[in-house]
Each structure stands twice: as structure tokens, then as C-alpha cells.
């Protein structure tokens, strides 16, 4: 590794102008990095107060995409909410569907056939691959590599979306999982093509990493920026790669072992400092682990039905009660809390959004850093506004 580029040079530190008594000279600048911004990942606003270039205060403002998903969930039936879950985190529709299907299966006590479980794992890990790839593309785009890594990332993403389109009919809003299985079966040709894609994906990741991991600009802009301690991360209810970059070993796939994740052999990568470089490397390493899981799942997938033939989809009325189900989505822990009163619609339908909760300590992460770092820090948290505002 190039030792010269490891740490940013000291002469770049920005110090505020102070007078003799130590108070800062000049006024504070209040700007609104408003909802329409080239790199706020959607309609997200931050009210930032700056002292020169250093951030003194930062208040996130969201709600510009509040589409009252939870209220709609109370007025429509259980199955009709499934397409709405696609639109929560619109990058990862398969994992959203799985979280909701898992919760309702827990509520109604439905069993899922083996083949459907394997298909669900394959879809979820493919989603994780394309999400992390696109995220790295956006992350580096925000840093100034305008567009080129993003083009590479989207090129690979299109290949995965082709697979999704073949099996579910839509590129992004797949609406594929059902309570008790998946909607349609995959055939052997699709599995063969997926194996081919996963084999080529490692080569693509090698190419991607060669360009980016040792890049001087990336190292200078991400190492040491916005470190997080373990206690801060746990207390702020962070989940996902953000939490594991701080060093906390908590991955819902290993803790809850939902589905058939207990059968797969994969590691959970952990970071040390919780800074931006660790968060970036988390996504890179998680993609490698996803490829391992995909190889195992594609090798072991059994034949069989994908849906219980006796499962009732129309007129689905689970018994009263409440349940909280959660999965590890690429952004963090996605949970659904459903209260059922025995009717065809849920009484209370609540989504636990990882992106919304991950920006709780955005202010703490950005204080003392330059305004250019704020954009990159926001990019590393990996928010999707459909989930933040629901």
C-alpha cells in the first residue's frame, strides 16, 4: 500500500480565526442544503450552520417524501400492502418484500417450503450485491469522481435487474414474495445464468477494487473522517454496515438466523474506527461474503414447490395479536410491527426504517468537519428517502 497517501497532510487542517481571548471572529453562516441538491440522495434537507468551512450545527429535515405508507397500510388488506413495501427502499425491493412476508408468516404461523427459502436467500443476496455496488458508485460520485464509477456500477446492476425482471416481471418493484413462499418458481436456465453472473461478479469486484481501494483521493478524504465509537453507535440504534464499521458484531442474519441463514458459512466483517473508510470497506467486504452465500445457495437449492398449495391468499385473516419481524436489509435492520385485530386489514402497520434511524446522529458525525465532508458522510450512511419518510 502506498504509505505516502495513508494520512491527509497536516497543512490541510482548517482552523477558525480566533482573537486574543479565544473567541472566534466573524459571523456564522447558516445555509440550507436544501431538498433539491445534486447529492443529497433524494429530497433531504440539512440546515447547516458554518463557521468558515467547519460545521457548527446541523439539523436534518425530512418529510419531503412522506407518502403515508402506514396509513395506507391500515386501510388495505395484508396482501395489498406487498407492492407498497417495494417502494419503501426502492433500491432493494426483494428484501423489503421478504421482511414483510416474514412478519406475516410469524403472525399467522405459516411454513415456507425449502425451495422458496433458498430462492429468497438468492434474491436477497443479489439485492445486497447491487445495492452495495450502486452505493459505492454514488459515494465516489459525491467525492468528485463524477459519473465514471457510477457507470461501471450501473452496468453490473443492470445485469442483476435483468434476472429480477425475468423472474418477477419488473426491474425494480418486484412484488415477488408472498406469505408462505414466493410467487413463481425459477427454472434451471435462470439458475445457470445466475451462477454465471456470480462467477463474473468476483472479477468485476476485483476490477472495481483495483481502481478504488488504493486511490489517493479516496484515502485522503475518508480516513479519519467522522469516527464513531462502539458505545455511540449502539446507543444511537444504528444498524447495518454503519454499526459494523464501528466494530460491533451484530448482524441480524447471524443473531436471529431467520430463514435458512443458519446453514450458510459466511463471516461478518467488522471495522475498527467507524470512519468513512471503514464504512466503504464494509460494503466491499460484505459483497464478497454475499458472493460466498450465493455460491452455496446455488449449489444446494433443492427441487420442490415454492408455495404451500393450501395457503390462503384471498380472504387472509390472521388471528388477533401483534408481532415484530426483522431482517438484515442492505441498509440495516428492517423491521415490521403489525397489530392484527382479526380483520382483513391490519390494525397498526409500522415499518422500522433503518435509514431514518441511521441519521439520528448525523449531527454528531458531522460536527467539526468541513462542509465538503458533510456530503460524503451523508453518502456513507446510505439513506434512501423512500424509507426515511415512508
Amino acid at each position, binding site marked *: 500500500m502506498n504509505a505516502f497517501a495513508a494520512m491527509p497532510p497536516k497543512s490541510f487542517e482548517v482552523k477558525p480565526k480566533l482573537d486574543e481571548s479565544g473567541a472566534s471572529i466573524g459571523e456564522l453562516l447558516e445555509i440550507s442544503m436544501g431538498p433539491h441538491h445534486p447529492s443529497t440522495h433524494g429530497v433531504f434537507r440539512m440546515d447547516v450552520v458554518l463557521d468558515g468551512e467547519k460545521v457548527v450545527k446541523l439539523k436534518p429535515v425530512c*418529510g419531503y417524501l412522506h407518502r403515508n405508507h402506514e396509513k395506507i397500510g391500515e386501510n388495505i388488506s395484508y396482501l395489498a400492502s406487498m407492492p407498497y413495501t417495494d417502494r419503501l427502499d426502492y433500491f432493494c425491493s426483494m428484501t423489503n418484500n421478504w421482511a414483510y412476508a416474514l412478519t406475516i408468516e410469524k*403472525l399467522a404461523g405459516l411454513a415456507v417450503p425449502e425451495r422458496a427459502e433458498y430462492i429468497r436467500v438468492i434474491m436477497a443476496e443479489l439485492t445486497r450485491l447491487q445495492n452495495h455496488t450502486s452505493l459505492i458508485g454514488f459515494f465516489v460520485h459525491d467525492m468528485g469522481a463524477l459519473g465514471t464509477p457510477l457507470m461501471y456500477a450501473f452496468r453490473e446492476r443492470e445485469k442483476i435487474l435483468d434476472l429480477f425482471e425475468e423472474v418477477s416481471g419488473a426491474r425494480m418493484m418486484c412484488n415477488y414474495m408472498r406469505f408462505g413462499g414466493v410467487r413463481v418458481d425459477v427454472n434451471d436456465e435462470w439458475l445457470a445464468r445466475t451462477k454465471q453472473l456470480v462467477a463474473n461478479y468476483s472479477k468485476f469486484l476485483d476490477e472495481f477494487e483495483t481502481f478504488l481501494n488504493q486511490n489517493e483521493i479516496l484515502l485522503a478524504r475518508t480516513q479519519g473522517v467522522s469516527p464513531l465509537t462502539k458505545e455511540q453507535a449502539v*446507543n444511537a440504534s444504528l444498524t447495518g454496515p454503519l454499526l459494523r464499521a464501528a466494530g460491533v458484531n*451484530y448482524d441480524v442474519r447471524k443473531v436471529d438466523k431467520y430463514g435458512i441463514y443458519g446453514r450458510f458459512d459466511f463471516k461478518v466483517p467488522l471495522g475498527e474506527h467507524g470512519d468513512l473508510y471503514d464504512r466503504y470497506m464494509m460494503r466491499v467486504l460484505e459483497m464478497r461474503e454475499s458472493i460466498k452465500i450465493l455460491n452455496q445457495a446455488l449449489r444446494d437449492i433443492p427441487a420442490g414447490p415454492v408455495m404451500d398449495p393450501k395457503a390462503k391468499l384471498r380472504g387472509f385473516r390472521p*388471528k388477533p*395479536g*401483534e408481532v415484530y419481524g*426483522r431482517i438484515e436489509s442492505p441498509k440495516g435492520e428492517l423491521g415490521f410491527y403489525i397489530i392484527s385485530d382479526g380483520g382483513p386489514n391490519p390494525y397498526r402497520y*409500522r415499518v422500522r426504517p433503518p435509514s431514518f434511524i441511521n441519521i439520528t*446522529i448525523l449531527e454528531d458525525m458531522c460536527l467539526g468537519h468541513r462542509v465538503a465532508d458533510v456530503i460524503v458522510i451523508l453518502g456513507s450512511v446510505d439513506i434512501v428517502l423512500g424509507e426515511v419518510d415512508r
Partner: protein
Amino acid sequence: METPEQIKLRLEAALPTAKIEILANECAAGERSLLVDAASGFAVAKFLRDDAQLKLDYCSNVTGVDWPDKELTEKIKVKQVVDGVEKEVEEVKKTLRPGLLEVVYHLYSMELKHGPVVLRMRTGNRAEQTHLPSLTPVWRGAEFQEREIFDLYGVIFDGHPDLRRILMWDEFVGFPMRRDYIEPDDFEYEPTPHDEVLDAAKKHYPVEAKAEVKPEVKA
């Protein structure tokens, strides 16, 4: 992980003034919750977070629930004198269960990797007694979620560092997620309405001229 009964015993031993109740959950896979009164909510939360056996340091989810006033009807047998003979007659008794707002916390432990423990707190009613203690000083992750419950349900959290609207605009009046919230009337153009939307859209239909009544010709 301890069962809710064991947690309740230890909580009552540590905090004698707390009133804790275990609520049943008819769904077998779901978790039973601990209902705590508002006055001791903060102390209970701190105990759950710092206790060595539980170490519930991760507040995963904070949810608001609206229970509006509900009229419960019960059929009870009452002895009444009918036609001079004492008989047992079924009478319908109506009771009004007052409405309230509820906040549910799902707690897990990242250190010991167990959970969840479900904590609930209920307000007095839905009108003016809507204050609950904020658990943000205990778990920072609850900050934005409690703000959302304030915005959408109207529960006021005492001790929250920054309680203001988060999802709706600041000039908004009302609490949209409550069950009795009436949405603004912009149903002028509904191509395919049905059910409640049809009723709302009918108000905007143009008034049709009354059809002429032709006199019936009797053959």
C-alpha cells in the same frame, strides 16, 4: 433470556413504586409486553439498559398506536319480572372504553444478543393527558422516532431534547395518523373510485338535471 414474569419480579424488587403489568399476546410467535405506568417509565428503562443480566442497550423500534373510544356491547343475563314470572332475560349492556394513545418500545441487547423485550406506556386519554416520559436520554436512537410519534399522533414526550414536527410541515395542524383524522378534500378527479373514495368523490360530481317522468301509457 428471562421470561417477562422474571423481569417483572426483578423490576418490582428494584423499583417498588413501579406498576408493571404483563399483557397477553394471542399470537403464539409474538412477544408478550410489559405495560409500565408513565411515572416510572424512565426508571424502568434505565434499569433495563443497565442491568447486568439483561443489558438491553439497543432500542430497535418505537411505535405509536391509537386506540380510539370504543363502545363495547355485552350480552348479560339479568333476572327480570316478565308477565308476573321471574325469568332470566338477556340484556345488552353498553360500556364505553375510553380511548388512549400508546407507545411501544422493542428492546434488544447487542452485547448479549437476546431480545426482544417489549415495553409499553399508555397516556391518560386522547385529549389533554397526552404526556409521556421520553426515553431519548436512555437510548439516543429513540429521538427521531419519538418526534415522529409526536408529529403524527400527538403524544408529548417530556424530556425530549428537540420535540417538533419531523415529517409534516411546521404549519400543519392536527395529528394525521389518528384514526379520526379527516383528510383534506381533494377528490375532484377520481377516475375509478370505490368504497369510501366513491363517497368522497360523489360530492364533486356535477348535479344532474332531473330526468323527465313520462306518463305511463296503459294499454
